[in-house]
């Protein structure tokens, strides 16, 4: 019965290799060259940020007036030049990466956790809960982001990366909430959820164990995109002077410091700006790669 054909398959050596969903995702992701390359670049940048004190040739605030306003040069490892106080810009960018990435990852994790919870509750329970949570989400979405950010940073004080992170996270969770809610609304009607209910699983168990794992793809993809968006917004905030304050180096702040010096010291805006662009671009590529890996049917180009 039944077992015969299988036995045949196994014995004749036509081996079917068992692959988990994650193995498939990994396989498809690593086939995506641009995404893999971006991931490598990101990892390098991330490690540089993580080990900034070890990597940077100088401290981020070492003032050496004798070395002021040097253009990029190999001499003394001032690869990104120095500013008018003689601070090494490579070191400042490296520390800036550290701060900016920290804030961005913090924002992505907190907003994803928050958004997933709100979306899951709204989607699972539906009805009044859904209505209430989603109208609240709509409310947050309609807030003019930049104005709120500027006001909030004035009221709660800016400069502290943690505070900036919290403020950004409180504005960034809405997208995940909507995505997760939509997924939950459709998952809720799936028979395996009914089957889990019939097997005596509790609401929490069904949400966490049966429904969330079916949403990891979109959630992870969205998280990566939030990292990119958070880097850009944090840079904009810092540029406007409402974000992270000196002596902390953040990428946006570095650009704003540099732009006041005009065109002669071009390296002061160019390198931090370049780093922001590279990071945001790479994260978006990785996000694309992940999306294609999780859901090959959404792929626009067949490769």
């Amino acid at each position, binding site marked *: *019965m*039944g*077992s015969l054909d*299988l*036995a045949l398959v*196994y014995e004749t050596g036509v081996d*079917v290799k*068992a692959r*988990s*969903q994650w193995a498939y995702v990994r396989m498809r992701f690593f086939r995506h060259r641009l995404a893999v390359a971006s991931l490598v670049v990101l990892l390098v940048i991330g490690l540089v940020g993580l080990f900034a004190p070890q990597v940077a040739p100088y401290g981020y605030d070492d003032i050496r007036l004798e070395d002021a306003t040097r253009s990029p040069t190999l001499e003394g490892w001032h690869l990104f030049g120095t500013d008018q106080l003689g601070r090494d810009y490579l070191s400042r960018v490296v520390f800036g990466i550290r701060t900016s990435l920290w804030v961005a990852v913090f924002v992505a994790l907190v907003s994803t956790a928050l958004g997933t919870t709100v979306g899951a509750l709204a989607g699972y329970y539906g009805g009044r809960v859904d209505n209430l949570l989603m109208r609240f989400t709509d409310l947050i979405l309609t807030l003019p982001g930049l104005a709120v950010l500027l006001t909030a940073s004035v009221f709660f004080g800016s400069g502290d990366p943690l505070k900036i992170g919290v403020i950004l996270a409180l504005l960034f969770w809405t997208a995940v909430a909507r995505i997760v809610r939509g997924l939950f609304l459709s998952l809720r009607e*799936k*028979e*395996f959820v*009914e*089957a*889990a*209910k*019939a*097997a*005596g*699983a*509790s609401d929490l*168990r069904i949400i966490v*164990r*049966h429904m969330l*794992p*079916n949403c*990891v793809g979109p959630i992870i993809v969205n998280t990566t995109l939030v990292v990119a968006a958070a880097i850009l917004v944090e840079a904009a905030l810092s540029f406007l002077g409402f974000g992270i304050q000196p002596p902390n180096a953040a990428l946006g702040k570095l650009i704003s410091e540099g732009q006041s010096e005009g065109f002669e010291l071009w390296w002061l805006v160019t390198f931090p700006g370049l780093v922001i662009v590279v990071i945001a671009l790479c994260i978006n590529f990785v996000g694309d790669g992940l999306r294609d890996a999780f859901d090959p049917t959404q792929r626009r180009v067949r490769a």
Partner: protein
Amino acid sequence: MRSIPPSAGSVPEPILAIRDLTVEFDTEDGVVHAVTGVSWDLHPGEVLGVVGESGSGKSVSVLSVLGLIPVPPGRIVSGEAIFQDRDLLKLPGRRLREIRGGQIAMIFQDPLTSLNPVLKIGEQISEAIQAHDPEAGDDAARKRTIELLELVGVPFAKRRVDQYPHEFSGGMRQRAMIAMAIANDPSVLVADEPTTALDVTIQAQIIEVLKAAQRETHAAIVLITHDLGLIAELADRVVVMYAGRVVELGDVFSIFDSPRHPYTLGLMNSLARLDADTERLEPIPGQPPSLIIPPPGCPFQPRCALSRGRVICTTDVPELRAAGEGSDHRSACHFAEELAAARGHGGAVS
């Protein structure tokens, strides 16, 4: 597997008794009377077949007892479901959850969609074990899972516990579903169209697995199906439902040999048989009635060949009453006796 029919006099206590169950659904078009005044007993160890066409209320009547119909729009208007001296319909959700998947387990129709695609088969069965026995460690649960998979005939169980549903064929998935259902030694097993989504050869295997599952657990089975062949194969007693009501009830032999309701007879006549030389199958004319505005009188009257326009059929809803030879053979037809006569002469009513 068919248990010896309980002889009259020593009728055992039913393990699950449904009394006067009425379930309605609120829809935009009006209130759907999905189940109306349904009562039946399930005795320990027996297989009770619940037959009816789509929309006859056979699934809803059982799912509502387990608290598995969406409320709203569903609504249990009245009735009782007595299980171990408790009314399941009045149990708080928490207590009902302990019973679901524990003492009363379910096998669903479509194993393709009833298994979570992102969890391994073994994880899903172990979860059912651990949900009802928090003491069970991971290793113990895994060992039991492998035993269960072997029991339901999944080959290479040790290897296949770590596979995902998409790596299982339809028949193997249904075996896994059955393994999950019997994981906690249920005393009642509800099988909702367990073979409908499978092809015929696999159906036969799944029937064998169901029999094995019953041998193992001694559970009473409620078999919801529209497949009379499956009923003939497995059931001890049969409940025939039409338009949300029980129209006939009895042991499988008397139902098949001498149906006492024109609807049951119609079902039999519309069945392709190997042992009869039938030129044409006789479908039941017409459509099932609207469950929003049920016709007055007998719900089957508009399609009934036996009624022949008699007034009582259009005015009075027939009560379920004793009919036929079997001790508990009951029919909800005003003229059940006429069927006995017609059958006796070997002809169908026309």
